[in-house]
Structure formats: C-alpha cells, structure tokens
C-alpha cells in the first residue's frame, strides 16, 4: 500500500498548480447565481481555457489518479467548478463516447470539450422519484423522428442548454427497465417549455421541462431502441470513484475555517464543540482515504467500480449534513443569517441524502448487490 504518487504524476501536479496560479487571477468576476446566461458564459470560458491548456479531457482519458489530482488541485486553488459543463463532461459526453456511433462522437464530443455546447439532463420525473425506471415520458416513432411528450424535473441549466440527454419510454408494454430509450434532444426544438423550479434554499437551481410533441430525429438516438436503461447505467457508474473529490477537499477546508471562526468567536473554548470538530476531522480524513482507495482500485480493475462507490455516497451524504450542523453550532444565532457563509450550504446539504438515490435506496443497493441479501417479497 502506498499513498505517494509517481514522479510523472507529481510532475503533472506541479505543472497544473503552476498553470492555475498563473491563470486564475486573470479570470473575470464570478457572475450572480441568478444570471443563467452569464453563468453559462463564465463556465464555458473556463472550459475553453482548460481545453487550450490541454486539461479538457482529464475526466475522460486520464488515469483515475490523474483525475483525482486534477480535481484536488483545482479545488485547492479555488478554480471554478465544472458548472454548466457538468452534464456534458461527466454524463452525456462519456455516454456518447462509450455507446455512440463514430458520427455521433464527432458531432457532439468536440464542442463539449471546447466549451461550446451545454448539455442538461432529462432523467427524473415528478411521479417517478427514486423509482427512476418508472418514468412515463412517451416517445412514439413517426418516420425518421421520435415524437416526445411528457415532463422532466430537477434539470439544471435547462434555460441555457443546447442539448438534453433524455430518457423516454418507447415500449410501454415492456417490463419497466426494458422499454426505455436514450435520446439527444436539441433544446431549441418546438414544444419545449422550461419552468424554473425554486428549491427550499430559495434559488432556482433547477427547472421543470415540459415536452409537448417534441420531434427528435432518430439519428439522435444513442444505443438501440429500448436499450436506454443499460446505456444510462454506463453513464451513472462512469465516474463513481471521483464524483465527490472536489467536495471532500472543500469540506476539509470548511472544517478548518470553522475552527478559525470558533477561535474568533470564543466557542473553541467549549470542549464539546471542539471535540465534535475533531471527530469531523477524522470523518473527512477517512472519506478522503476512502476516495484514494477507490481510485486506486479503479486503476487496478480498469475502472470497474467496487464496493467503494455506494459506501462512500452513503457515508459522505450524512457526514456533509453533520458538518453543516456543526457549522450552525459554531455560528450560534448567526446560523440564521443567509448572508453568512455555510448557511446556504447547510440548506443545500439537506438534498444529499435524497438526490441521486435516497439513502434508503442506497442501503438497499448495498445490502442486495454487495452483501447478497434477498429482495423483499
């Protein structure tokens, strides 16, 4: 077992760090969170810089360790997040790379890497919830087109996206996981209505997307008709090991900031609070080690996800909520002030045990798929 990196990797880290130090000060000011076009421009601008410097493909082609180093260093340097590029770079792109035709790859991948086109995700539906495969959005074939009707929810960046990776039901008679197809839907097609969805944090981070007889060319289908579930699962397990690297790095920074704030406002003198922060330090150190373990495992197994991914997600989503609860105790009455740091993060942390599979569903998955316990009747 080792935790050190190879000389080549250290060289990569050094080069990246140097580049970040050089370019970050020249970035424009961060746009307001409510200005979607400005956010798109900012995020795509950053992606273009990464592309020009040769870092654009790190999510796709690099070894898991290099990806880990990239995510660690960009977070530590305070670089922009992937933002509007998220779905393109981490979901739709990898799916197309793995399952698309040569033509489809040539059409869609380069604009993603160059920061020219934004993708959004049309998977979740109001009535499906955790039961993703229960989706009802219908697509019927009409000549060379699919005609799509239904609605999607929890779609980020929908207002400014060029494309939507869409799951639709093409065979309503088939068993639930069977009749699903994966489509790339152009967001300027007639019949699409985007309605911002306000969350409990007060922001419109997501949208609902309503589809009324939207026509999508058959050539925009990736994979076979009715094979969309398998195609999607490729996407969903793609970056299992490194999905939260940046966040864990950020949580560890937050912990240090909390300690500093507690020393400033005197709460550091309360042993109970101090020891609680100490326990959280143990927790996030362990989660970081687990990330390294998972990444190393992915490297030796050629990317096949081990037990680590689901285990990580379960523990991390809980730990993140504990972290922001501790932040509230450090802040005292100021924890009620949305203008204070961590307060909005506390609100959004509430989604972590719900989004992308509730903790209840995750525990079922761990128990059934990893531990081999029987399904309930």
């Amino acid at each position, binding site marked *: 077992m080792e935790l050190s990196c190879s000389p080549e990797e250290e060289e990569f880290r050094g080069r990246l760090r140097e580049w970040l130090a050089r370019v970050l000060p020249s970035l424009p000011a961060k746009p307001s969170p409510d200005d979607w076009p400005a956010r798109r421009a900012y995020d795509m601008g950053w992606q273009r810089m990464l592309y020009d410097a040769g870092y654009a493909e790190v999510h796709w082609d690099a070894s898991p360790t290099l990806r880990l180093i990239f995510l660690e260093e960009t977070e530590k340097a305070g670089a922009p997040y992937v933002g509007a590029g998220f779905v393109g770079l981490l979901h739709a792109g990898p799916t197309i790379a793995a399952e698309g035709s040569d033509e489809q790859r040539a059409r869609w991948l380069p604009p993603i890497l160059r920061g020219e086109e934004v993708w959004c995700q049309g998977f979740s539906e109001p009535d499906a919830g955790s039961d993703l495969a229960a989706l009802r959005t219908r697509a019927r074939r009409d000549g060379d087109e699919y005609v799509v009707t239904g609605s999607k929810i929890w779609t980020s960046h929908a207002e400014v996206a060029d494309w939507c990776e869409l799951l639709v039901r093409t065979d309503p008679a088939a068993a639930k996981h069977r009749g699903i197809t994966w489509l790339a839907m152009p967001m300027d097609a007639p019949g699409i209505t985007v309605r911002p969805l306000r969350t409990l944090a007060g922001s419109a981070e997501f949208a609902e997307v309503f589809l009324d007889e939207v026509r999508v060319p058959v050539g925009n289908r990736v994979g076979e008709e009715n094979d969309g579930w398998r195609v999607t699962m490729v996407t969903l397990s793609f970056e299992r090991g490194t999905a939260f690297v940046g966040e864990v790095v950020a949580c560890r920074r937050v912990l240090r900031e909390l300690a500093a704030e507690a020393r400033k406002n005197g709460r550091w003198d309360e042993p109970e609070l101090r020891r609680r922060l100490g*326990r959280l330090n143990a927790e996030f150190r362990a989660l970081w080690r687990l990330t390294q373990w998972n990444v*190393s495992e992915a490297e030796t197994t050629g990317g096949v996800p081990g037990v680590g991914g689901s285990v990580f997600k379960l523990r991390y989503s809980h730990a993140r909520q504990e972290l922001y609860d501790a932040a509230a105790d450090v802040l005292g009455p100021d924890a009620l002030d949305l203008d204070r740091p961590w307060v909005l993060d506390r609100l959004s942390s509430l989604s972590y045990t719900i989004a992308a599979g509730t903790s209840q569903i995750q525990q079922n998955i761990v128990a059934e798929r990893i531990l081999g316990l029987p399904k309930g009747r």
Partner: protein
Amino acid sequence: MTVPVRFQLTDDQRALRDGVRGLLARRFDRETLRAAVDAPGRLDRALWRELGAAGFFALRVPEAEGGVGLGLSEAVLAFEEAGRVLLPGPLVATHLAAGVVPGAADGSVVVAAVDGGLVEWLDAADVVRGEAGGVVPLRSVDPLTPLHRVAGGAEGGGGRVAVLLTAAEQLGTATRVRELAVQHARTREQFGQPIGAFQAVKHLCAQLLVRAEVARAAVYAAAVTGAPVDIAAARLLADEAAVRGARDCLQVHGGMGFTWESEVHLHLKRAWVRAQRGGGRTESEELLAADLTA
C-alpha cells in the same frame, strides 16, 4: 506512464494476510475459541510460540536483527486477522516488545504492558512493561481477556503503534461481525422469509459494511503514513465500527445472539476492552481538533 503500486494491497501483502488467516484457521478455529472461553486466563503457549515462529511478533524487527523486516502496513494486516478471530493474549504488547525484550520476538516469552490504567494478561506474562505497582485483579467482562487495574491515576500509556495495532484488531472485529450478521440475515427465517429480506435488517447490514469500510481506509492509510493525526482518526473510526458493529450484529441476531454460545457478544466485549487502550477517545479527538488549527 507506468502504473505504480497504489493504495491497495500488494501481492506480497495479500499473501501475508492469507498466510496469517490460514495459520489462525488451523490453530484457532471455533472449537478452540469455545474451549478458551471455558478456561479463562489460560494462555496457549504452544500457539504463542507458533505465532512467534511465523513472524507475528518479529514482523517489524529489521532483518539484520533477525526479524522479518516488514512495516506497519503488514503489521496492521496481521492484527486485523487476529482481531477477526478474537485471538487471545497480549498480542500488541508482545509485538511491541520484539527486539527489545529477549524472547518476545520468537514467542518464547509473553510480554504484557500497562495501558489505559489496565494490564491485560498479567498473570500469564513473563515480563510486564510499564509502571505496574499496585495492581488489582478485575472480574473481566471479556472472558478471553484477564484484566488487572493499575492503582493510581495514570490511565495513559500505549504508544502510537499500540493504538494503531489496536485499531487494526477493531477493524477485524468490524469485518467479522458484518460477516456474521449477513450470514444470519440470509439464513434465519421469520414471517415466512429470510430476515435479510426486510429493509430494517438490510439497512443494519448495509451500515455494518459502511462503517467497516470507512474504518478500513482510515486504518490502512494510518499504517502507510504513521502520522499521529491519521492514527487518531483511525482509532476513532475503528472503535466505532467495532462497538456499534457488534451491537448491530447482536440486534440482527435477536435472541439467538443473546446466548453465551453465540460468538457475537465475545466481539462486543473484546471491542469494549480494546476501546479502553491508548488513553481514551478524548485525547484523540483533541489531537484531531488541534490539527484543524495547525
């Protein structure tokens, strides 16, 4: 770019772990465990020498001094296996004495040590390290660990490595109770189906796995770095994984885990004993807190 050895077990480490597991399976199987429970306080000196011959105690002693010449990572793997089968005896103390106390390395001498205000296996030991004046025997909660209380306040003791190796033993218990719980959940039927088909049992088992695997990452990393703050983290997570794990395993077993014949309570009791080593949680938590302001 070459793929270097990573944060995964090397082939040699796997071989070492399998070797220890094999030795323990042969020499300390379930019947031997039950026999040991029924004869508390008796240490199997033949087994002790066999452990010595296999290099369990001399694992980290340099080859030049007649040892195996391996590191903390390998020691952690060996102690995890010992914890897994509830191997009795002052393993940590004797391992730490190898190369220092003559005879400890080859298992011909049994070494106990003062740690956390207690001495384990005092009467069976040939040598006791640490300030052990005024010891009083306890009626130990763990039938496999005779205990003496050290009079006076000194509840510290147990160095960095002792804490890490104890965490490795706790990891062994955390892994074993997860196996026991899953095994029981798969086979025990209630209300017409295996109890593992019920979500409540499933989720207990899932959390048993989560706690053990998070602790594993922390313990192995601490073995690689040897840093005090990593060891403190490993200790907290391994204690939790072992104690909570054994209790949840008991809950999964229901009444059947509540009998003396069950293995589950032996893990819980040993986990309690180990959690007392190394000066208590507080110190580790304060170390980890201080690290945040460093």
